[in-house]
C-alpha cells in the first residue's frame, strides 16, 4: 500500500488540480451485557481506499472496498469523472498551503484491547451487572465495552505521505428503573450516557473506569429518580459537570465555530451558524471566564491525531479567549476562503468511504480558578447541579438550545441536596456562556467522550472528546420540558 498510494497520486497529479488518497483499515469490537446475559458481541473489520480530486474547484470523491491496484485506479477514474460532470464551481480559491506530511505515528497503548480474551472483558461486564442487580428496583441492566483501532495511510499531490494508527477503548454501564405502575421510567448511566466513556488508549482505560465499583451507586440513583420530585420550572443558577458540560460545549460552541457551517456549506443538512466569518476578535461568545481551545493534541482525546485526513498536522487552535471569538475549526479550503494562513487541521472522515469534512478536534473548555466541584457548590448557595445527558436539541444556527439531564441535585445552603428527576434547561448560546461566572480549576478538568456526532451527506458519525471542569451559569431557564 505504501507503493500503491504514491503511484496513484502520481497518476492523478497530471489530471487534477489536487488529489489525495487514503487507505483506511478499521477494526472494532463491541460487547454488551443485558440483565446478566450477553446482549451484543460484534467483531467488525473493514478496509478500503478513498480517492479525492479537485478539478476546477469541484471535488470528486470515490471509495472502494477493494484494495488492489485496479480497484484504486478505478476509484481515481470515478472521482475524476464525477468532478468533471458537475456544474462549474465559480469563485473557488486555492487550498491553504501546508507542508507535506511525512512520517508515522501510533497513539499510546499500554495493553492492546484486542489481545484481551473476550471472556475477560465479559467477566468485567458481568461483575458490573451483578453490582446493579443487587438493587431490586432496577428492571434493566446494561454494561458495555468497546475498542476501536484505525490505521490510515495518506498521500497527496502536495507530496504528503504519512501513516498513523489510533486505538480507542472504553465502556459504560446503565440502570433503568420503572415505577411500580409502569408510568415512569428513569435511567442512570456511568460514566456517561450515549455509549459511555471511551479514551484514545488501551484496555487499561476500560479497567480504570471501575464499572463494578460504581454499579451500586448508579443502581440506587436510578431507583431513587423514579420517585424523586420533578425539576420545577423557573430560573436557577446551574452547575454543569462531566458529560452534560461537554455536550454543551460540543453543541453550542464546537459546531458553531465549524468554518464550513459558518460559510454556509452545511446549510443543507447540519445547518449554518450564528457566528459570522468576520467575527474573530469582535464577537463576544461568553463571559471573560470562558476560554475554549480546539486541541488535537489532548492526551487520550478521541479528537487527537498526528495528522488530519488531508495531511495537516494536528495542533491546538484558540477558539475563545476571555469570552471573545478567537478562531474557527477549519480545513485547507475553508481557511483559504477567509484568508487564514493555515488550516486548523480539522478535516476528518468516518472511514475510507467518506469524504473528509470539517469536524471537531477536542474542543476543550479551559480550566478556571474556582477550585473543586465541592468548592463551587459551597460557593453557589442555591441552584442545581446536572451532570449526565439524556436529551439534546439545538437549532440549525446553534443559537437556541434545550437539554435534559438524567439527574439533578438541588443545591441548598452551599450543599448538594435532594435528587430531582427530568432536569431540563434552555438558553441562547452567547447569553448562556455570557452568564458563566466560574469554572473549576485544573485539578477537576477531565476529558469526556461523545461517540455519535452526526454530520455530512452521506452521513458520518464522528467521535470526539471535550475537556472541561465543572462550570457555573447564572439565571438559567430550567424545567422547560
Amino acid at each position, binding site marked *: 500500500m505504501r507503493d500503491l498510494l504514491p503511484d496513484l497520486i502520481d497518476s492523478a497529479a497530471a489530471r487534477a488540480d489536487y488529489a489525495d488518497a487514503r487507505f483506511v483499515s478499521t477494526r472494532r469490537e463491541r460487547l*454488551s*451485557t443485558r440483565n446478566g446475559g*450477553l*446482549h*451484543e*458481541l*460484534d*467483531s*467488525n*473489520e*473493514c*478496509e478500503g481506499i478513498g480517492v479525492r480530486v479537485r478539478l476546477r*474547484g*469541484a471535488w*470528486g*470523491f*470515490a*471509495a*472502494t*472496498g477493494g484494495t488492489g491496484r485496479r480497484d484504486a485506479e478505478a*476509484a481515481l477514474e470515478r*472521482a475524476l*469523472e*464525477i468532478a468533471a*460532470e*458537475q*456544474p462549474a*464551481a*465559480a469563485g473557488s480559491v486555492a487550498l491553504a498551503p501546508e507542508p507535506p506530511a511525512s512520517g508515522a505515528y501510533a497513539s499510546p497503548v499500554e495493553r492492546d484491547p484486542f489481545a484481551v480474551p*473476550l*471472556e475477560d472483558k465479559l467477566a468485567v461486564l458481568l461483575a458490573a451487572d451483578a453490582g446493579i442487580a443487587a438493587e431490586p428496583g432496577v*428492571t*434493566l441492566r446494561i454494561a458495555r465495552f468497546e475498542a476501536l483501532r484505525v490505521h490510515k495511510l495518506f498521500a497527496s499531490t502536495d507530496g504528503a505521505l504519512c501513516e498513523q494508527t489510533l486505538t480507542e477503548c472504553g465502556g459504560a454501564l446503565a440502570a*433503568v428503573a*420503572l415505577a411500580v405502575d*409502569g408510568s415512569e*421510567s428513569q435511567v442512570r448511566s456511568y460514566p456517561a450516557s450515549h455509549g459511555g466513556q471511551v479514551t484514545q488508549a488501551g484496555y487499561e482505560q476500560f479497567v480504570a473506569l471501575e464499572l463494578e465499583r460504581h454499579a451500586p451507586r448508579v443502581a440506587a440513583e436510578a431507583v431513587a429518580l423514579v420517585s424523586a420530585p420533578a425539576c420545577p420550572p423557573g430560573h436557577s443558577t446551574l452547575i454543569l459537570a462531566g458529560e452534560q458540560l461537554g455536550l454543551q460545549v460540543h453543541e453550542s460552541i464546537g459546531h458553531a465555530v465549524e468554518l464550513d457551517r459558518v460559510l*454556509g*456549506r*452545511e*446549510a*443543507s443538512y447540519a445547518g449554518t451558524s450564528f457566528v459570522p466569518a468576520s467575527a474573530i476578535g469582535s464577537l463576544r461568545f461568553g463571559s471573560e471566564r470562558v476560554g475554549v481551545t480546539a486541541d488535537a493534541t489532548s492526551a487520550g482525546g478521541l479528537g487527537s491525531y498526528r495528522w488530519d485526513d488531508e495531511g495537516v498536522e494536528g495542533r491546538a487552535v484558540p477558539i475563545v479567549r476571555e469570552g471573545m471569538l478567537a478562531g474557527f475549526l477549519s480545513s485547507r479550503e475553508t481557511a483559504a476562503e477567509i484568508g487564514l494562513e493555515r488550516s486548523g487541521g480539522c478535516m476528518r472522515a468516518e472511514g475510507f*468511504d467518506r*469524504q473528509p*469534512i470539517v469536524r471537531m478536534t477536542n474542543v476543550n473548555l479551559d480550566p478556571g480558578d474556582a477550585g473543586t466541584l465541592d468548592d463551587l457548590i459551597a460557593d453557589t448557595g442555591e441552584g442545581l447541579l446536572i451532570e449526565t445527558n439524556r*436529551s439534546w*436539541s*439545538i*437549532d*440549525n444556527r446553534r443559537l*437556541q438550545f*434545550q437539554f435534559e439531564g438524567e439527574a439533578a441535585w438541588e443545591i441548598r445552603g452551599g450543599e448538594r441536596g435532594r435528587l430531582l428527576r*427530568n432536569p431540563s434547561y*434552555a438558553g441562547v448560546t452567547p447569553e448562556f456562556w455570557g452568564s458563566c461566572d466560574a469554572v473549576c480549576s485544573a485539578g477537576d478538568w477531565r476529558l469526556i467522550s461523545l461517540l455519535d456526532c452526526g454530520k455530512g*451527506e*452521506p*452521513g458520518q*458519525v464522528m467521535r470526539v472528546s471535550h475537556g472541561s471542569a465543572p462550570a457555573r451559569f447564572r439565571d438559567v431557564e430550567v424545567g*422547560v*420540558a
Partner: protein
Amino acid sequence: MWRSALREVSELAEQAASLAGPGALAGVTRERSLTLRFAANRPTQSTAVEDVTVEIAAVQGGRVGRATTNAVDTDALADCVRRARGAARAAAGTGEGSFPGFGLDRDPGTPRAAPARPDSATAELAPGAGGAQLEAAFTAARAAGVEAHGIWTAGEVRRTWATDAGAGAEGTTDAFMKVICLAPGGRSGYAAHTARASAELDGRALAEEAAAKATAPGAPAELPPGDYPVVFEAHAVGCLLELLAGAAFDGLAHADGRGALSGRLGTVVASPAINLADSPSSPRTLTRSFDAEGTPKRPLPLIQDGVAHAVAHDIRSAALAGTVSTGHALTPGGDPYGALPTNLVLAGGGATGADELCQPIERGILVTRLWYANVIRPKEPLVTAVTRDGTFLIEDGRVTRPLRDLRLTDNALELLARVQALGRRQKLTSDGELYGRRFASGVVCPALRCGAVRFTGAAG
C-alpha cells in the same frame, strides 16, 4: 445486469453460510451509491461508494456472536467465521440464552411482501444525470434571487441472506434530492423528493417550491411560547412518526416495559382518524421483502382507528415477549437499540391539501419541516424539535406571513390524539440521512392538522 450481480452476492452469502455451519446466518450487502452536495448554487462535495459488507451471525447456547468484513476472499471469509464463532462461544459462556435461531418463517400462512423492484437506470449512478439536476436547481434558484443548497443522491443496494435452511435476495434502488433555498433576508424554504428511481427527481421543480417558501411576502412574525393549532406538512409529519417509531413501536423496549405503548396495546392512544401501519410492500414506500434476520416482511398494523394494535419485533425481542418476529430486525440476532418499523404508512384523510387544513384555524402555525428532533422521555413519549425552512403564521383560515422558527416540546402520542384532519395526498418523506451501509427508508404520510401543539421557545 443487476440480476447477475445479485446472483454473485447471493453466492457469496451462501459460501459464507456454508463456512459458518449449521444455525449461522450470513448476510451480504453490496452498496453502490453516488451523492452530490451543493451550497450557494455551486457543487461542494461528491461521494461515490462501492463496497460490500459480509456479516456472519453464529448461534451457540441461545446466544449470538457477530462478525463483519468487507473483504470477500476465502481467507477473509474464514477469518470472519472464526471471529463470529469465537464471539458466540464467549457469549454462550454467559449462560443459556433464549435466541431460538435464524431463518425459519414462523408465520408461513400469512402473505409475504413481494421482493423490491430496482430501477436499472438509477443503478447506473450517472454523475452527469445528477449534475444536470444540480444545474437545473441552480438556474431556478438564481431566477428567484435565492441560493440553493442541498443534495442529489442515488443508490443501488443488493441484500442477501443465507442459512443452512434457506436463503433470500433482493436488489433495491433509491433516489433522493432536497433543495433548501436561502433568501437574502435569511428566510429559507425546503422541498424534497424521495423515490425508487432517480428519473423522478426534478431539481428545477424542487428549487422553485423551496424558493417560493423562502421568498413568501411579509415581515416574519413572532409568537410567544404557548399552545397553538398547527398544520404539519408531510415532511414534518414524517419526522414525528420516525420519532414515535423508536419510542413506541420498538418491540425490545416494549418487552422491557420502557416503551410508550407498554401496557397500552388495545387501548385508544390517538385520534380515530389515525391509521398507521408498517407496509413494506406498499408501492409508495421503498419496499423490502425481508429483514436483517431473513424474516419475511409483512404488513403490520400499528395503530388502527386510534387504537394501539402492535409493536415491531425481531427474533430476540419476540422471544422476550413470547411472540414471533414481525420482520423488523435491523441486525441479525437483535440490534442493541431494538426492532423498528422502516416502512411506515399513515393513511390519508379527506382534506384536499394544506390550504383546506388551515381553514378552520383562527390563529395558528404552518410547519414545513422539523429539525433536530429528539426523544426526551420515551416512556411518555415526550419529544422536542425545532421548526425550520418554512414556518408560517395562519390567521383567519389562511397563511398570511412568515413566522420566526419555534421549538416544539410535546407528547408525540398526544399530538396524534389531537389530530383533527388529514390531507388526502400522501407523500414519501425522508431526510435522506444515509449513515453507515446505505439503508434508504422513508415515511409515507399526508399533511395533517393538530388542534393544539405545545411550543416552548424560539429557534434560529
